[in-house]
């Protein structure tokens, strides 16, 4: 890597982030399983393939730790369980590592642990191992949490590299809520209506889709880097073009307002309970119907399709007949100044 020190941009979920992972971590630790680059890895515990599990890990550092629509506890369960769910796996066992800054309020800690419990129940998972460290003031920002999880794959073959021409792209709900909400509260932007983060566990929806006998081609929750990161990853991994009709992508007015104000693209903002699905054409309507049965997913809709026009690129189509590429977000997320 050209860069001598790690900058915040390297953690943005976009191009620099991928660069850091590839040039440092993959370089030394790369293997065939890691190289698949999925949200969770499917690993075989027995050589004969008799015992497959989905396995993943994620760390959570968020400021503020309590935000509208969730807190660091909830998000640390959702994040890991969602990664498992996105591989079509049923989240079962989690580990929980907590690093706490000296002086942290015990009541806040308890609040966080209660959210963890609640979210575990939604997923039907339990914590089976844990670790706590307390570090001197200033060594971490209040509290950092890491969770790892294993789950039982209910189907196989869900993969970012399986998209093919004709598949349709579905989004589970209105996008960019988490990013917009965190930005607004962090920057003290006064809003008429606060924006709740979309932070939520996705396994119940995945389960409903699988139970209906539908096998999605790919699923991914649009966390850091947002919808645009997921679509770009799929386009590259599957060597296809993804065309999105911009006007169809649901964005709430409050979120759009914040984005207008700060010059953000909703497509690049983070979500914590919103996922994209690539599905076979004949399954798309049914998938949308199933999603809509969940209160928060009433805006679920088909937003685009897989083509072969510009391979490895994502193209946004406007209502007035023009198009542009949707880029992988780069740099630290900063507002444009004019």
């Amino acid at each position, binding site marked *: 890597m050209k860069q001598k*020190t*790690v*900058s*915040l*941009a390297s953690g943005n979920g976009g*191009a620099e982030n991928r660069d850091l992972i590839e040039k440092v971590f993959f370089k030394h630790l790369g293997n065939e399983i890691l190289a698949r680059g999925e949200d969770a890895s499917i690993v075989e515990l027995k050589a004969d393939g008799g015992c497959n599990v989905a396995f993943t890990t994620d760390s959570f550092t968020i400021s503020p730790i309590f935000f509208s629509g969730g807190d660091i506890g909830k998000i640390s369960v959702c994040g890991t369980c969602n990664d498992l769910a996105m591989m079509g796996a049923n989240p079962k066992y989690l580990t929980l590592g907590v690093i706490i800054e000296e002086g942290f309020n015990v009541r806040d800690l308890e609040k966080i642990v209660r959210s963890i419990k609640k979210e575990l129940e939604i997923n039907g998972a339990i914590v089976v191992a844990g670790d706590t460290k307390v570090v001197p003031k200033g060594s971490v920002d209040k509290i950092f949490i890491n969770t790892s999880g294993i789950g039982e794959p209910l189907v196989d073959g869900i993969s970012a590299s399986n998209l093919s021409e004709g598949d349709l792209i579905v989004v589970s709900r209105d996008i960019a809520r988490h990013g917009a909400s965190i930005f607004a509260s962090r*920057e003290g932007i006064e809003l008429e209506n606060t924006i709740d983060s979309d932070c939520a566990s996705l396994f119940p929806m995945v389960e409903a889709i699988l139970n209906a006998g539908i096998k999605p081609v790919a699923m991914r929750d649009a966390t850091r880097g947002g919808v645009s990161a997921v679509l770009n990853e799929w386009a590259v991994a599957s060597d296809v073009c993804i065309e999105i009709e911009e*006007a169809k992508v649901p964005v709430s*007015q409050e979120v*759009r*307002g914040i984005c*207008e104000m*700060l*010059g953000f693209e909703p497509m690049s903002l983070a979500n914590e309970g919103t996922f994209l699905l690539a599905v076979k054409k004949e399954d798309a309507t049914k998938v949308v119907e199933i999603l809509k049965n969940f209160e928060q997913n009433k805006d679920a809709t088909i937003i685009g399709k897989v083509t072969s026009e*510009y391979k490895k690129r994502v*193209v946004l189509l*406007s*209502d*007035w*007949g*023009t*198009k*542009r*590429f949707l*880029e992988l977000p*780069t*740099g*630290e997320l*900063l*507002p*444009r*100044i*004019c």
Partner: protein
Amino acid sequence: MALELKNLYDDFRDAKTIKALAKLIEEEATKLDRDINIMEVCGGHTHTIMKYGLKQLMPNNIHFIHGPGCPVCVMPKERIDHAFVLAMQEDVILCTLGDMIKVPGSRGSLQDARANGADVRFVYSPLDVLKVAIENPDKKVIFFAIGFETTTPMTAALLEHTIKKELDNIYFHINHVTVPEVMQELIDSRDEHVDSYNNQIDAFIGPSHVSVISGAKIYSKFANQYKRPVAVSGFEPVDVMEGVLMIVRQFVQNRCELEIQYKRSVTMDGNLNAQKLIDRYFEKRGLFKWRGLGNVPNSALKLKDEYSKYDTEVIYSDILPKEEIEDHKLCICGDILRGMATPNECQVFGTACKPSSPLGSCMVSSEGACSAYYKYGSLL
């Protein structure tokens, strides 16, 4: 109620209106006897043109020349180095706006400074600096001020508050630039080394937000003296399309005028209070270097002498680097900005010069011509 809010954005992006304007432009353009090149001066317009694909809606004989972009892209390395040096001082918190912190100088970007331990913060509004200063009384808080006429009054307001509140830990590094002077430089450079005689700019789309402050009057000489029609336009796609239509009609009807598309808030005189506020604290600099264009006379502001105790260029003059840094030899930004070349004619376009490692100003932000070609090239 909910619906109304939505309409506010959507009216100006309404597909029907945009299509209708595209048709009108096309009809009018058939009456032109030559191609015309319209420069959109401001990066905000470039952004709209790219984001909404307006270029694809233009007939073959209408071309856009992307202007000097945004105040961030035109900031020369010398100034960024100043910011870097200031930020690296032990007791300093350096505040600036938006994506300024991404742009590399010769020692690195402010982001790099931060990775090296500097306290660099970005603020949404200059007035946010007050809060930082009050919360950190034992630190020197330096505001690295950037922006066109639009943000200058806010910097002036920050200085006014600093004085009124008797805060003694706020300092300024002023990099405010002005739009009309650079437009003039593009069509009529006074520098004998610059060949601006062959510039291809036929008309301007002027940024409305600058005129909200300074008034549309600042552009009148371009229509009167330089014979370039000007349409002062807003930033929504419908605004830009309407601005283009106004300009095309001027050519068809053989007029050359200053017209205001953005009547929503632009007047001839602008905001006199804001202008007064600026005049109270700022005066013109003789020369200011623009990345890609070199020194442009009277194109920037500095603090008046009586406020020099707030001016880091005075206070830190001993440690601020003074050496000139040449623009990259191969960079042809100057020609691109004059409409005399396109980005793909640059030898290093897309190879040595990319958005992630820009050599020249046109590649620095998403609003520059080179980066637009790089990103959207095959869709333009």
